[in-house]
């Protein structure tokens, strides 16, 4: 595997060897011909086992696309994703994804508890343990009381939390999360962040976490991958050397946190073509 490490400028030889996930010159073009649209231009980075990598980037950058390629749900147009050294073809076992479109990833015909239990049943977890894991996970996301409800009877944020509970109850070895906390309030969000960190520590999960909240990206991460606007490239990879375990108050008070935050913010903002900025200066609202 060491022969591959030469292609990663940012990752030194030593860590490359331990990479469980390896994204190599990934490109993705949607459509073909005149309507072709290149979402990912050239993405390379690695994720070590049990590492938590957050991915930030402007809206429409290609984060979801990237995540789907890593999950094996989408075939890249070029480059490849290696998992434990072998190229990803289709979906692997032990992987969980929290989709950005959480509402559509829940099964509206099943109750909340059943939604969470389904992957466990598929993985042949014994009934008693399944039952217990479902209850624990639902309690952890604050939805113990909603277990018998159907998804359409829940608020947006609650649905999102069901999706999170499902992923956590599954205890995947690799967990991909796509803006998982977009629809929950600040307090709940902080709690869920800590829940994710705790689960990672407890079960040794490798995490790729997409967010558009820079505080969150820094708070959670071992490393932050910053994507450029589309066609996306990795504009920077930021090592986050904040002490573990993280703490919502203490960690965020650290001066390094502030620096990292500012650094990532600038990295995201440093767009070659600042379309949004233009828009607000030239456009009258509607």
């Amino acid at each position: 595997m060491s022969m591959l490490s030469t292609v990663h400028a940012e990752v030194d030889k030593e860590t490359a060897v331990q990479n469980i996930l390896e994204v190599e010159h990934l490109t993705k073009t949607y459509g073909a011909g005149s309507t072709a649209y290149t979402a990912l231009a050239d993405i390379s980075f690695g994720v070590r086992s049990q590492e938590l990598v957050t991915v930030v980037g402007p809206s429409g950058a290609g984060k979801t696309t990237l995540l789907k390629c890593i999950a094996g749900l989408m075939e890249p147009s070029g480059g490849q994703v290696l998992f434990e050294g072998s190229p990803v073809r289709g979906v692997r076992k032990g992987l969980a994804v929290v989709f950005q479109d959480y509402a559509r990833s829940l099964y509206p015909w099943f109750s909340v508890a059943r939604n969470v239990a389904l992957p466990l049943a598929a993985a042949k977890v014994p009934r008693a343990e399944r039952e217990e894991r479902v209850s624990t996970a639902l309690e952890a996301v604050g939805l113990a009381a909603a277990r018998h409800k159907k998804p359409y009877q829940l608020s947006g944020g609650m649905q999102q939390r069901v999706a999170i509970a499902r992923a956590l109850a599954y205890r995947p070895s690799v967990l991909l999360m796509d803006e998982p906390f977009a629809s929950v309030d600040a307090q709940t969000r902080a709690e869920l962040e800590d829940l994710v960190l705790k689960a990672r520590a407890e079960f040794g999960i490798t995490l790729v976490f997409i967010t558009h909240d820079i505080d969150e990206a820094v708070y959670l991460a071992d490393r932050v991958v910053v994507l450029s606007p589309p066609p996306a490239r990795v504009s920077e990879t930021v090592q986050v050397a904040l002490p573990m375990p993280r703490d919502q108050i203490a960690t965020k008070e650290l001066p390094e946190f502030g620096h990292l935050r500012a650094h990532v913010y600038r990295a995201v903002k440093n767009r070659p073509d600042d379309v949004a900025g233009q828009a607000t200066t030239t456009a009258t609202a509607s």
Partner: protein
Amino acid sequence: MTTSTIDPHPSTQVMSTDALRAASQTRRRLMRNALWGVGSIALGAVLWQGAVWLGVLPARYFPGVPDLVRAWVELFGDETFWMALGNTLLTTFLGLALAAVFAIPLGILIGRSVYLFHSTQFVLEFFRPIPVVALIPLVVLIMGIGVDAKTFLAALAAFFPLVVQTTYGSRSVDPVALDTAATYGFGPFRRLFGVLLPAASPYIMTGVRISAAVCLLVSVATEIIVGSPGLGQSILIAENSNALDVMYALIAMTGFLGIGLNGLVVAVESRTVRWAREGGAS
């Protein structure tokens, strides 16, 4: 978290009255459904009687509603009528079940696999337009005139609409739901019963409603042509005896059977497909 703070007391305090209220609500809903049903049938009766009165349908050849009612009363006292009814119903149910067992899985598979779709398309589309009546001699030649032949023909006729509806249904499944199933490593069984079938069920249930009527019609038609016992045979006898009121009374009975059958499917549907109406389907 926040949602666990639901105060349980308000609901537990009024539990008993709640249960009572729920029961009376169910009763009221049943009443309402019955009222609508009666209204609908009354509408049909008025339209028919109106057409007969106005002479759009000459009274000599189209019995009015009172004549029909009289014929029904007579039929209800006739044991052979009930046996015929039972025979027709049996064929219909067996045929529908047989069709469903083959059509639904096939439809799901065809809808999800382009390869299977293209390899079956010609065969399916070729056989689909062949009317069951054209096959009756062949089927009789092979299977005789028993219940099995009748059931086979009914199932065959019901099979195709159900395949088409299921195919469309399985194509309507949300890709995110499928991606979810893929990432969590659902096996074929769970994928089918946990995701594809429920997601496609709005289409499938419509298909079952279509096929149930087709099944009933074909049962009656084969009874007429082949002469297996059933409502169709009774209709045939009445027709050949120039007994108009009995014939129309029997035909109306098949219509009522159709209503019952549809009601049955809808009752199942309202349990299984509620999610679609309440906010799941997109």
